Each structure stands twice: as C-alpha cells, then as structure tokens.
C-alpha cells in the first residue's frame, strides 16, 4: 500500500498526472526508488495479468473490453511509481482494478443506479447534506447517519450476508444472479439478505451510542408496546 494514501486520489477520470494534494510541493521519488517500484509493478502485473483479465471479463460480461480496461489499470498504477514507495504492489493493483471496474460499470449504468450523483471533490459526510430530489416519506422521519458508521456496519456483516447485500444493493444484481455467482439457491440468498437487514437495523437503528438521531417523539414506540 502507499504510505500516504489519503493524499492520493485513485478516482480520476482525467489524464492529469497523479500528484499529492494540499500543502507545498512534494518532491518526486529518486531514480533508484522509482526503478525499484517499476520492477515490482512489472513482476506483479506479470503474475496477476491472467487473473485480472478473467475477473474484469466477469464484471463487464464480455471479453472484448477486458484487455482494454486491464491496460488502463496498468497505466494508472505505473503513475504511482514516481510518487511513493510502493510497499504492496498487489494491493495497489487490485485496488486500482476494482476502482476502474466500478467507473466503467457506472458509465454503462450497470451498478449504483440509485446513487445520487456526487461531485468527486465534495464527498459529503452525512446523507443530510446531499442534494436529493427524491421526496420519500422516510425523509420526514429525519434519519441521519454518519458515513463511517454505515461502512463499519456493512464491514461487520458475516461474509455471505455482506456479499449478498452489497451485490444486490450496489452491484444491482438480482437474487437469481447472486444465487448463480455464490453457488447457492435463491432462497439461501434471501436468508443472507434477511440476516444482513436485521443486523444492519440492530446496529444502525437500535444500538445505544450509534451516531443516529432518534426517531421523532411522535413516531417512537416504547419497548412495552404502548398503543
């Protein structure tokens, strides 16, 4: 992994050279370190090329564009060679591949279709800050959740439940498709989804100390089930 990851943005659709942001000028890497980076990347790419092309093919659904996307991935990782010592080339390679695959799938309208379009440079910290034109009845309840809390909650899900949930909600896959990928029945996928929803609900809406605003008084029902 790059030592100073927060300053380097991976998501860049333009052809600007990747630079560290904020503060003064950052010197580029000396020649020897840069060459070492490049050798490490070359070896890593050689070792993982087959796996990457196979995975990208699966994600895009066809083989034609897979090599092109792979080439884009490699071009992008090589840009890091002059910037920071690359301590884990494989992690960098996989991170970049995942990122570019998502960009391409978003471009084709295949994933994250419900997402509000957010400007790269202004990732909001809370949902409440997002401009949204979808008037849902739920909004009136005034839910507000911290982005960090939500990511933690998803990461905390058991593997299968998390996979099913993320694939369904963000990769926009049907239960049938997920069942095929995970090698289980659709009803099993539904079980995973139930598990995910219940755990997320417990953690995000019920746990004491969670960074969630309580529901407005009139909507709240006590544990005793008062009418």
């Amino acid at each position, binding site marked *: 992994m790059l030592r100073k990851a927060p300053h380097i943005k991976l998501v860049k659709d333009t052809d600007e050279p990747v630079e560290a942001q904020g503060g003064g000028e950052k010197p580029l890497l000396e020649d020897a370190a840069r060459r070492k980076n490049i050798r490490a990347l070359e070896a890593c790419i050689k070792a993982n090329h087959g796996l990457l092309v196979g995975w990208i093919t699966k994600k895009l659904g066809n083989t034609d564009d897979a090599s092109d996307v792979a080439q884009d991935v490699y071009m992008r990782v090589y840009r890091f060679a002059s910037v920071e010592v690359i301590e884990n080339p494989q992690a960098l390679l996989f991170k970049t591949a995942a990122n570019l695959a*998502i960009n391409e799938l978003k471009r084709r309208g295949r994933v994250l279709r419900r997402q509000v379009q957010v400007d790269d440079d202004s990732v909001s910290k809370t949902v409440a800050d997002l401009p949204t034109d979808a008037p849902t009845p739920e909004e009136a309840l005034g839910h507000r959740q911290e982005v960090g809390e939500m990511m933690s909650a998803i990461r905390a899900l058991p593997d299968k439940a998390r996979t099913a949930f993320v694939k369904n909600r963000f990769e926009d896959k049907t239960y049938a498709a997920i069942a095929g990928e995970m090698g289980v029945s659709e009803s099993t996928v539904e079980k995973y989804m139930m598990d995910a929803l219940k755990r997320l609900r417990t953690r995000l809406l019920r746990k004491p100390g969670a960074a969630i605003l309580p529901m407005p008084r009139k909507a709240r029902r006590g544990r005793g089930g008062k009418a």
Partner: protein
Amino acid sequence: MTMTSKQDIEEQAARWAVDLMSGDNRMHANVDLAVWQDEDPCNARAYDELQAMTNDLDAVGEEALQEEFERELHEAAAERKRQRWVAGISSVAAGFVVAAVMSVSMWVSAPEPVTYQTAKGQRSTIALADGSVLQLNTDTRVTALLEDDERHVSIEKGEAFFSVKRDESRPFIVDAGETQVRVLGTKFNVRLGASSNVVSVLSGLVSVAQRSGDEDDVHEVARLHAGEQAEHDTMRQEAVVEGFDQGSVMAWRNGKALYHETPLKDVVKDLNRYFDSPLEIADSHLADLPVSGTFNLTDQDVVVDALESAFSIVAVKRLDGVILLYARQEN
C-alpha cells in the same frame, strides 16, 4: 392495534423488504405490501424505517462496492495459491527429459503438477518451463508445479541438483520431507535422508526452513551462502551449518561417488542407493574402516572390485543377491 409483538412486526417488515429487493419484479409484491401496511400503522412504520435505512446506505454504495471488488480479487489470488496440488498427478516414465507445461491462467488458474522419476542407478536431467534445470540422482522422485506466483518442487525421495533460473516475481520452493528450501535463483543440491535432509549450496543464497504438518507452518532454520551446507534434523527441528567439499557432494552429477575417510558403513549405505544388489558388511569390525577414493557408479561389479583391491575386502555374493563384505584373511 393488533396483538402482534414488536419483534413479529419487525420480522415481517424485514421479510417484506427482502421480498421487494429481489430485483426480478415480483409484481404482486407491491400490492400485497400496501395491504399489509394498511393493516396497522406499526407495520407501515417498521417498513418505512427499513426503507429509510437502506436508502441512507446508498451513500456508501460506491465505497462498499470498491471494498467488495477488492475482496474478490484477493480471494481469487488466494484460491489460485490453494489450487497448487490438483488431484491426479500424472507420472512420467523415468529417463525422459520433459518440460513442465504452464497453462494459460484464467479466472482460476490450475496448472498441472508433473512427476519425474529415476530408477536405481539411473540419472536424469529435466528442463522446466521457467528455464530452471533439475538433475535427478539415483532412485529419485520429484513433482514440479509452476504457477503464476510461485514455482514449487517436491522431492518425495532421493536426491536432486537444482539450477534455478532467477525470477523475482516467483520464488522457487523445494519441499523435501519437512525441509523447505526457498530461493530466487541459485544452484544447490538437496538430499532426502531417513532422519535428516542435506542442502548444499553451490551459488546464490538459500533459505532452509522447517515445515511442520500443514504448509502454512514454516520457519527458517538456516540461511546458506555459496559453499555452505545444512544438515536439517527434522526430528530435533534444527539444522547444522558447515562447509562442504564440493567435489564429494556434487560428484554424482558426473556419475561418480567421492569419499574422504568415510566409514565403510556409510559408504555402503550410500552405494546401495545406486544398485539393486545391496551390499552388506559381514565382519562387524569393517564397519568403521575409513574409505577414500573416487568410484565410478556405472557398474556395481567395478565398484565391488575396487573395494576389494583397495581395502583388503572379500566380496561374496549370496544366493539371494546380497553381496557380503568380509575382511580378507592374511595368511
């Protein structure tokens, strides 16, 4: 208000949510949902809160998908490693020079392991697809598997000399019993023994490790430079490092055995690896007789003649084929 408990309502709400997220347009579902929601405001609220939660979660959708995709890639790389020993090892007749074939790696790559074997008294040279060369000594069996990220050879019995082509993207790993040797590119000899294995390095840097039980429990016991040799006692889990006489250790590669003040019992043990008729010491005080010299390993008769003439030994062949060694009686 119905008497349904809060838990039941929450359970039902979750069922409805799961039903509606299937993505396959369950047409009746929306209508049925509305009916259930109308039955009780508690129902509606339980469902609404779940829907609000999942909507809020959309805000981290891209980040969550990014992590999921990375996980898939790391898992695929790990799976490729686990698929090292695919069932069905193909055996190759001894004496042929065969190159291991690397298959094109796809979503999950599964190159085939290949086994090479020599008979007693036979030697064999094998070129691997990565440019490394193995030389097998008598009565030896090895299995080789070359993958994207690792090159792996297992010595099941015998002795082999390795001339490993340097490849920084793929370490070369040799397993001989519980000894594991890791190199990038180097020349070394590995001999599998009854209670200890010997690794002798001609050039380069070699890591020798103890491998216990399953593959993941590996720890280094010696690091050898050119000219160094480790005798790895796998029981005691320790290795003794010393220099070695290159001539003696590697002589087999030229079809010779070299001994220097080696006790006869050890010479006999070594020679028996090469020949079908075993030698046996009949006079016990011959056991420690120091033997020095070079033996040509092509023909057992020649070896026995040399022992007889140089070391005052008489060899007698028994009916069952065993060759007994007696001290010559000087009359």
